[in-house]
């Protein structure tokens, strides 16, 4: 959440700049580089970050999260709360009041009908909407008057800010998308490429997976914005060359998500043509411990299911020892630099939900060894690997293919070797690892390994759905086609009770307390999940681009209307 920039000057420039450049389109062209190319401009049909962020410049939600994670009104005058009466006292409905005088880029008026249509569009059962989770629990949407819309939920929603909040659920124009609902949704390629929006830019030319040209929206609500007349959003390539194009050659003004080893990024940043910006969100790189036995000798029906507990990872002392052997500070130094910080928490932010647990920061190899001794694991045959009752501490450790993750694998393998644990490494191509293909043995859900590493976060600022994933029975298993979010096969009735309690609690302090407790149950009390690094986002912009405020809670391009040329 803390915003750090190389040159504080850029921040200062941001604060005073808008007044200085008070003319729309006076700053010419701005070039943005996304190393993952944009495929579509409709976030309801593709939830890839690149697609959501590109479309966020054209279509907008009613409210956004700012760089601190706080909600800011966007197309409304204020964020509805219980205090201002926008949210009903029983938390079952929320009423949005739209700003007066908003128009779409085609000149027609923006009304509550459009908002209602957007919800219907996504909730159509045949549409395959990718943001359906945003509309979870919605029972009806009513248009009270042309500028007021009321969302009613089936049950009390402690967090009613799912629909129409954040870059994932922007408002579509009813007139444009009317014939694109349900099964027709995917066939409307023109509509999906050239949406009519309220944002600062409109799409002029869309080339899928390649380049998009935008021009300033002349109906945009602030007559002085955007400062740029056109924008080019180029996609494709690799991270290193994207960083070079901004920091070394200044061919482009902005490069998105530069996940590079810190020494590489620093060396490129010495080019001096631009600067990097970083910010933190809720993304945590973690080790997941498999509580079930993934042995290939087991029949397919019981392999890696709750029927077969893990031969040694089901012992908490082994899991704790594995965690103690890790030097998180070093991992950050090698892999993320300024874009990472050590963490012991599954929920690292927002601050009120984050537990103050820091005991894992110090590496303790001797303590880990002692713990393994205590658990009865000793190296009796002198091969450097501990064993007990013929069970060797031999771990298969898998992750997706990614240079930083492979470095982490090597470092962690080395530490585990020092405490007498043998590790075999495996890296799997991301499209297979994160794909839910039940036929593949290599998906992270199937977890045919002892330990796996990846990063996950939660959308927005409310961790409830995230923590609810670890419910008993929610684990991937053959009967559910290996779908399910409880990757570790964790099961604790106490925890389930807390999930239910969290679902009924509206009071923020109480919610935070519950979330902290649940976070600790999963991490420092059971070592089921071993968090490693709280991962931030690093992007880069050229020295001549002003107004950039990196935001990890919403689209990175959330304030593109304020971007301007520094002269």
């Amino acid at each position, binding site marked *: 959440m803390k915003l750090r920039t190389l040159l504080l000057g850029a921040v200062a420039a941001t604060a005073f700049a808008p007044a200085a450049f008070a003319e729309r389109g006076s700053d010419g062209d701005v070039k943005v580089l996304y190393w993952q190319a944009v495929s579509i401009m409709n976030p309801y049909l593709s939830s890839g970050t690149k697609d959501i962020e590109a479309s966020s410049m054209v279509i907008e939600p009613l409210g956004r999260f700012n760089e601190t994670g706080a909600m800011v009104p966007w197309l409304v005058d204020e964020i509805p709360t219980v205090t201002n009466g926008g949210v009903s006292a029983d938390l079952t409905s929320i009423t949005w009041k739209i700003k007066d005088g908003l128009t779409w880029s085609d000149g027609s008026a923006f009304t509550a009908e459009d908002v209602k249509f957007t919800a219907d569009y996504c909730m159509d059962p045949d549409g395959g909407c990718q943001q*359906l989770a945003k509309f979870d629990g919605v029972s009806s949407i009513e248009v009270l008057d042309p500028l007021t819309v009321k969302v009613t939920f089936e049950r009390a929603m402690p967090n009613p800010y799912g629909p129409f909040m954040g870059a994932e659920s922007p408002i579509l124009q009813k007139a444009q998308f009317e014939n694109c609902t349900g099964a027709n949704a995917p066939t409307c390629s023109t509509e999906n490429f050239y949406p009519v929006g309220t944002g600062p830019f409109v799409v002029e030319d869309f080339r899928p997976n390649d380049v998009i040209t935008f021009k300033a929206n002349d109906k945009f609500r602030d007559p002085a914005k955007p400062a740029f007349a056109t924008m080019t959003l180029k996609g494709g390539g690799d991270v290193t060359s994207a960083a070079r194009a901004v920091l070394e050659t200044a061919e482009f003004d902005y490069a998105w998500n530069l996940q590079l080893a810190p020494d590489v990024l620093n060396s490129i940043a010495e080019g001096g043509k631009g600067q990097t910006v970083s910010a933190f969100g809720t993304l945590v790189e973690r080790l997941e411990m498999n509580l079930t036995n993934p042995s290939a000798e087991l029949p397919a029906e019981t392999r890696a299911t709750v029927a077969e507990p893990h031969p040694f990872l089901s012992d908490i002392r082994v899991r704790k020892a594995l965690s103690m052997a890790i030097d998180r500070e070093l991992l950050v130094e090698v892999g993320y630099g300024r874009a990472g910080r050590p963490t012991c928490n599954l929920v690292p932010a927002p601050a009120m939900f984050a537990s103050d647990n820091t005991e894992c920061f110090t590496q303790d190899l001797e303590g880990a060894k002692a713990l393994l001794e205590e658990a009865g694991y000793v190296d009796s045959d002198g091969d450097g690997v501990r064993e007990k009752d013929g069970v060797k501490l031999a771990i298969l450790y898998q992750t997706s293919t990614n240079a930083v993750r492979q470095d982490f694998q090597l470092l962690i393998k080395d530490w585990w070797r020092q405490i007498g644990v043998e590790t075999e490494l495996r890296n799997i191509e991301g499209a297979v690892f994160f794909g839910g293909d039940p*036929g593949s043995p290599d998906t992270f859900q199937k977890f045919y390994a002892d330990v796996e590493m990846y990063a996950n976060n939660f959308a927005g600022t409310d961790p409830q759905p995230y923590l609810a994933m670890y419910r008993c029975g929610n684990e991937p298993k053959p009967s559910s086609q290996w779908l399910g979010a409880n990757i570790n096969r964790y099961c604790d009735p106490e925890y389930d009770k807390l999930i239910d309690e969290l679902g009924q609690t509206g009071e923020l302090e109480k919610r935070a307390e519950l979330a902290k407790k649940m976070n600790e149950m999963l991490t420092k009390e059971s070592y089921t999940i071993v968090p490693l690094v709280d991962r931030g986002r690093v992007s880069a912009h050229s020295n001549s681009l002003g107004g950039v405020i990196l935001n990890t809670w919403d689209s990175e391009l959330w304030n593109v209307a304020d971007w301007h040329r520094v002269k």
Partner: protein
Amino acid sequence: MLTFAIRRLVLTVPTLLFISFVIFMLLQLAPGDPMAQVPLTVPDEVKQKMREALGLGEPPLIQYAKWLKQMFWIEPKVLIDWMTRESALFGWLPDTNLYQGELRVLSWQTRSPVMDIIVQRIPQTLWVVGLSYIVGILIALPIGIYSAYRQYSVFDQAGTFITMIGFSIPPFFTGPLLIVVFSVQLGWFPSIYDTTHVVNDWDSFVFQLRQMILPVLVLALQTTAQISRYMRGAMLDNLRQDYVRTARAKGLSEAVVVMVHVLRNSMIPVVTVIALGVPSIFGGAIITESVFKVNGIGQLLITWLFANDLPGIMTLTFIFAALILLFNLIADILYGILDPRIRYD
């Protein structure tokens, strides 16, 4: 030869059908999921609904049949409509309007017709990959011929050295190396290819040349190395044959002996290699295209492969297979022309 060509062309149809079926089944078998790139924050039930919306729940054979119909019945209608409406060649014909809004082959990732995207990608692929192939051949043939003619001369040794090193260093290294030297240090050429650039006057042509030069260099190095090695080897074999001595003995000039007699007889392996390479122009150059962000067909294929966009991959590989069959047929016909003794019937 004509009957041979016709018979082979007719045989191409069942072959292509068979190949497309094998590719389809391979894609079905391969692990992977179009939802793999969807963030983990999206719940599994939503992903399952999205898969169903893509038609993934249907049995594979039905999916295949649908693809066949879209590819061979609906897409040609769109093509004919386009030809009679917009192309210069058939524009005078009345508009046909055969296409009535049926479902075309749609990409899962972009939700737009696959063929439209492919057509959009062809210019940059031809400019960069096609040109580099021609440049590569034009450099490789003289190098191969002269190195063989003056075997073990300084030219031959230097040529061997450079081409072999060029071939053994992969483009994922030469590409960034050229960017560091020519874009970062010297600042002569852009490191990012602008696919929206339109050539309409001298200045824009120069710009096009400047942005093409680095990727063309990287690709031409590989082509040159490969073809010149085969050319040299085949020339060496033939230069030692008895007919060369005979030709020289009857007083033919060296130029005629080498460039007519020997060259023609040495072309068979070279023609094979060149014909094998032409379809891969269309296939694009995956690594080089993404290093320089040329975003041609190679980049499209790799993006779709990682996104598991089955209709897209299926259509691209099918076109690719058709080109392979076509050019291998052309190579077979060329064999007969180069060496009339070769008979197929």
